[in-house]
């Protein structure tokens, strides 16, 4: 069995599909594409899937990680699986474990990057609020981006999820609730901090990840392409 780490985008109205429904989105689409999953032990065997940190309902995303154990998976298989996904879901990357026991999924979800904007009005008021949040150590970094919107990096995405922004902006009287704030999670993954450069978040299906290799084009099995 192969341990495969994939990233997916959740776009458009798919952002309203809750985190709890995501495993069946992938297992059903995988079934349609002929993917052979490794099943769990027990009375009701199920495909073994691990998800990354929870993404709240209503937040679109570009690179959400998950892991699955399969008999085999090539780039061609993944393209077929990708086409079997329901509307709004897309695969964005995939790696196969090459060193057994290479880091746990959640252990490698060190940070998350978000795009933030106020809905229907100028997003400038977020600037001061984000500056305060950075001072308070709630976020690592932010900067204004085109749009205009703000690009923001948070460490420990399990703790500092989108709810943090809603809570902090509402506390400061900028928004009333979720409906006033647009959020998009760009990536969840490894935090890269370099001198003189803004910190960035590398998606977990990035091929530079240690202990992982890209999918092969043709038939593969455990141990090599």
């Amino acid at each position, binding site marked *: 069995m192969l341990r495969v780490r994939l990233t997916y*985008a959740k776009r458009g109205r*798919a952002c309203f599909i809750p985190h709890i429904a995501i495993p069946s989105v992938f297992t059903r689409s995988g*079934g349609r594409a002929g993917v052979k999953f490794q099943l769990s032990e027990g009375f009701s065997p199920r495909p073994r899937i691990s998800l990354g940190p929870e993404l709240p309902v209503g937040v*679109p995303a570009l690179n959400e990680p998950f892991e699955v154990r399969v008999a085999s998976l090539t780039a061609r298989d993944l393209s077929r699986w990708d086409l079997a996904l329901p509307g709004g879901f*897309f695969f*964005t990357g995939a790696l196969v474990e090459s060193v057994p026991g290479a880091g746990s999924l959640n252990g490698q979800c060190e940070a998350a990057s978000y795009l933030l904007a106020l809905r229907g009005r100028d997003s400038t008021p977020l600037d001061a609020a984000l500056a305060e949040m950075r001072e308070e150590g709630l976020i690592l970094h932010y900067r204004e981006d085109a749009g205009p919107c703000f690009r923001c990096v948070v460490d420990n995405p399990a703790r500092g999820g989108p709810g943090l922004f809603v809570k902090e902006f509402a506390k400061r009287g900028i928004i009333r609730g979720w409906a006033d704030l647009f959020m998009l999670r760009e990536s969840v993954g490894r935090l890269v901090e370099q001198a003189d450069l803004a910190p960035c978040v590398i*998606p977990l299906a990035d*091929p530079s990840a240690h202990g992982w290799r890209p999918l092969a084009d043709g038939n593969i099995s455990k141990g090599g392409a």
Partner: protein
Amino acid sequence: MNRSEETTAREAGFTPRPGAAMPADAEYGDSAWPLLSNVKRSSRYAGCEYGVLPEKSGGGVVRYCLAFPDVYEIGMSYLGFQVLYFLLKSLPDADADRVYCPWTDLEEQMRLQGAVLSSIEGGHPLRDFDVVGFTLQYELSYSNILTMLDLGGIPLLASDRGDRDPLVAAGGAGAFAPEPLAPFVDFFCVGDGEALLPPITDSLSRSAGRPRAERLARLSEIRGVYVPSMVDCEYSPDGVHFTPVDGGRSLPVRRTVVESLDDAFMPNMLLVPSAGIVHDRVTVEVFRGCTRGCRFCQAGMVTRPVRERSPGPLARNIISLVDRTGWEEVGLLSLASCDYSGITELVRTLSPELAARNVRLSLPSLRMDAFSVELAAGMEAMRRGGITFAPEAGTQRLRNVINKGVDEEDFESSLRAAFSRGWDRVKLYFMMGLPTETDADLQGIVDLAARARSIGREYKRRAQVAVSLAGFVPKPHTPFQWEPQLPVDELRRRGRLVKNALADVGRGGVTVKYHEPEQTLLEGVFARGDRRLADVLLSAWRMGARFDGWSEHFSLARWMEAFAEAGVDPSWYAERERPRDEGLPWDHVDAGVDREFLWRERLRSLDGALSPDCRQGGRCVLHGPSCLECGACLPPVEEGSYA
């Protein structure tokens, strides 16, 4: 796409589709987002289904919106819309989309923002379709129909609609007794949708651009189509009388059925939702109709005769659907799947194929006998939950009255089979208020539950018995259509009697739930109602009636106010015994079974006489040895083929 995605794609030979990296404007600019972010379970409105077919372009296409008057997770569990959706998509001159009733929180938001109810796939306002077709599965969802029409920008009353408004259609079980909805609906479809939609589409396609009245007149010529604006009704002491308007087509309106399910349309794909629904599985209908003859059962009467699918092609279709949908479970649907003559062969064929795919098989309805339990015991999906049986009544006398062919021996053997095969929780479903019921029959329910627990404890120390009690609602086109329904207070007394008695014997082993008798009253009124109830419905809806089938929204006080405002006495509809010759509000709809047969069955019920199941070899046999001449039989078919 950012740097790392590009690298991954290039090195791996996998290229993400462009939609993955579309600009965030797509979500930022979605006008529905603020609406959906303020409501519960926004996944209901997200769509994101697999299997959706592209919208057809160009003119000359009749655009249907299939409308389910309840929430998405219930509507998506309804097989009928899955079939009709793909049927319409398969017709060259038809297209289909769907819509479900928004929950009250979204309705409130939509009204605040002036949003129009739109279809789930294309996002088209309901008012822009050619036909908005509701399915009538439950009387307590009727107020939701008005909500959907109103939010969709369609005048509520058919008489207020113009040539540019959609035609509002309705089908399903409620179309067999359609009068309470007659003023809101342009045409009803009585019978099997697979047989009705092609000629309806053809008629609408040919009459495109013609005045509304002319289009409806043409539709009324199709067997199974009822256009209420072309039928007058008069009320007199001897009941309701219907007459065609201006020499329109003759009455009654006869239902249309498919003669052979093997030849009927069966989809080779199903829509797969992304968020959980009530029945989240591949559902296939193994047969239609039932001849067991339970006298309370409307579905068993109006779907006659029995028509089975052949096991071989059915098994192939099921496997294909599993492969195409990716669902993890298959449900075999019918009024009593264990009555399917090919059940053993079907299960034998399917089991290894499904096991190889890690797909479970389930039977939504189980007959009360050891064979059914043994069959279910082999199904992992069935073993996971409790097992449900429906003795319906507590004594043999009353089970004979309702022609429920279950005796004490069946009861005992099914329970022993269930507990011995590993189940530790059994649910028993009963009705209260059946004709001739006495307190002794209610005590019979208590005794059966106690007996079930006792049997269970022989096998399992922690065996549980859950009793479910529902108030009996006499339904049109059944032998009990003339019977009175019990008043709310009496239903409540009987429910409490059973509940208290079970509490005495329960001691943790027996639980009981009974349905709200107030909702039962309303169901009974609308089930056998006439056109005068439309005013009540409209009034109650204006007072705020929504999702009346959901106890958290139901208010009898609101409905009683609406009844009073319209000058209508609900007890006259629900609690009155009808004389034999009274004109009934559904007499103009011919459901297949003869009124005389229903009356004979009623008399037999009062004598406690059982009527046999007339099917032989899985099909109805006209004038066969057990034929009761119900009137619904199709002509005899060749030996070896399935009718």
